[in-house]
């Protein structure tokens, strides 16, 4: 399969100084390794999920791949063009969409925002109008296209971001947390739109998100990065099969039982215990490694002191895998 994104030991360090004057004197610097010898490849038409805890280096990687930031070591190729040697070629074929509310002209209308970028990307005026209309329609904000962006809701801003990113018909889209802060319905719609970009229009999408079920549902393949280092890279199914050694078990106890987790956390094979109280019951979520301890052991342990209402055994989710792999 053709790799449209390929990185070669790409790395990025930041140097931080405690103050302006120390910077001038070059004193007290601290090196932050944001991305450390990353090697990944993404195929054409693939929806690639790039996951990792806060500060793992996801945004830094996207910035390097999109030529906004120079790597301190290594390089990458985008559609065969080296990001260091041919950044202009790379820029023409990609688009970067950052999540959140930055990156838009708030005082202008959605349509004017689109028009600015359509012009700067050199679309001629006849083609421009149609394309802008089509994209606003695609993301579903055509009816508010002429209102100022400052009157948009988060979801509308996010959809405008995506439409803006598509204006020059790029081959590769980098989406940095595109569903950040959206309600479930809108997030769902947006995911569908993103999915269609891959399947119908054969675009390659490189996406970061903190929502594991989203990555699971959406992505063909995911990579997990932790403190700048790649720790997993496979399809969500394979990852769950390979690393999903921890089974989530939900146990409901009658009554409010504080601090019950202490009984369990010290047990061998128990990876995590979370407890919550609702309507005079206590809900325990326990992560068990079934090679070491079975559900029955835990149940009989709890039964001695508490009344159990129900026990429910789930199958490992991508979130479980993520928590497992990124535990320090």
């Amino acid at each position, binding site marked *: 399969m053709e790799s449209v994104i390929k990185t070669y030991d790409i790395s990025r360090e*930041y140097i931080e100084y405690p103050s302006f004057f120390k910077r001038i004197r070059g004193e007290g610097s601290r090196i932050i390794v944001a991305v450390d010898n990353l090697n990944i490849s993404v195929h054409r038409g693939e929806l690639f999920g790039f996951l990792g805890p806060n500060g793992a280096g996801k945004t*830094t990687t996207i*910035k390097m791949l*999109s*030529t*906004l*930031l*120079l790597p301190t070591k290594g390089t990458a190729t985008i559609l065969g063009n080296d990001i260091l040697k041919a950044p*202009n070629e790379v*820029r*023409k074929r*990609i*688009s*970067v969409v*950052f999540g959140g509310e*930055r*990156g*838009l*002209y*708030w*005082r*202008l209308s959605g349509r*004017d925002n689109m028009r*600015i*970028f359509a*012009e*700067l*990307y*050199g679309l*001629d005026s006849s083609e421009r109008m149609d394309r802008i209309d089509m994209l606003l329609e695609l993301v579903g904000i055509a009816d508010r296209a002429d209102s*100022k962006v400052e009157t948009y809701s988060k979801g509308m801003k996010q959809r405008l971001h995506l439409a*803006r990113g598509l204006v020059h018909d790029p081959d590769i889209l980098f989406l940095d947390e595109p569903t950040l802060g959206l309600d479930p319905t809108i997030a769902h719609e947006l995911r569908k739109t993103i999915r269609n970009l891959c399947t119908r229009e054969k675009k390659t999408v490189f996406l970061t998100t903190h929502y594991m079920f989203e990555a699971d549902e959406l992505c063909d393949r995911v990579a997990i990065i932790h403190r700048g280092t790649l720790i997993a890279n496979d399809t969500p199914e394979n990852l769950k099969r390979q690393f999903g050694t921890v089974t989530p078990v939900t146990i409901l106890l009658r009554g409010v039982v504080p601090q019950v987790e202490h009984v369990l956390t010290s047990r061998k094979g128990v990876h995590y215990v979370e407890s919550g109280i609702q309507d005079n019951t206590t809900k325990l979520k326990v992560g068990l490694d079934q090679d070491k301890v079975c559900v029955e052991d835990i149940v009989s342990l709890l039964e001695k002191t508490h009344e159990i209402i129900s026990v429910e055994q789930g199958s490992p989710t991508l979130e479980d895998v993520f928590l497992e792999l990124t535990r320090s």
Partner: protein
Amino acid sequence: MNPYWISLRRGFISQLQHERADILWGIHAFVEPVFVAFVVIMLYRFVGTSSQDYATYVVFGSGFIGVWAMVLSFGGKSIFQERMQGTLELMFLTPVSLFTFSFGKILSSAATGLVSVAAVLAVGKFVLRLPIHIESPGLFLVSLVMTIVTLSVFGLVLASAYMLTRRVAYFMNLMQYMIYVLGGLLFPISVLPFWVRPISYSLSLTWALDAVRVSVSQNAWESSVFWMDAAMVTFLTAVYFVVAVVLYRYIRKIAVRDGKLSVY
């Protein structure tokens, strides 16, 4: 279409759209210059100077206060704002030149500032009944255009300095008022202390304003002073332009090296 032309035009239009959405420019372009003109004229009257002596000086000087304020507060800062609001890095990814885009923005701010020149002229002539008559209208227009262009190029230097460090903001606010003095906006620079004058002479605004005044007060076609002014403006503008180009290249370089395109 040529990408330089596209970005220049787009910068110009975007800035106009932003100004339309932000009424603050009315204060810079209208209220402030008219107010300053009024105060200064009252001062001249108080000390008993003949209006023949100060009319053109004050009217055009304070008119250009508006142009200058627009260049500084709208043009110069707008590039910095692009960085704050996260549009600068998106701009950076487009195939056009950030330099011409910025230039378009500042040029458009400066051009909007011409409102102040018209406003002060109207107030001076019709409200305060000052004796103002434009002797060489053709060259007056030429010198207006010259002033707009040279201030914009100067603004571009400031805009790039602004992108290098936020600390320039403090300096910029100070700068707004310093130019009133250094550029001879409200009184001739010949009254300034000797050591300050080199600074005045290195500002193209000083020469451009002189050209404006010469074209108002005499037949400028035959005035060697006018052509001298024009030559100095051209020369200094070229120098600023080169400085701006070098600074923009440098910024582009360090921005991707240090990851400063979106940090604020």
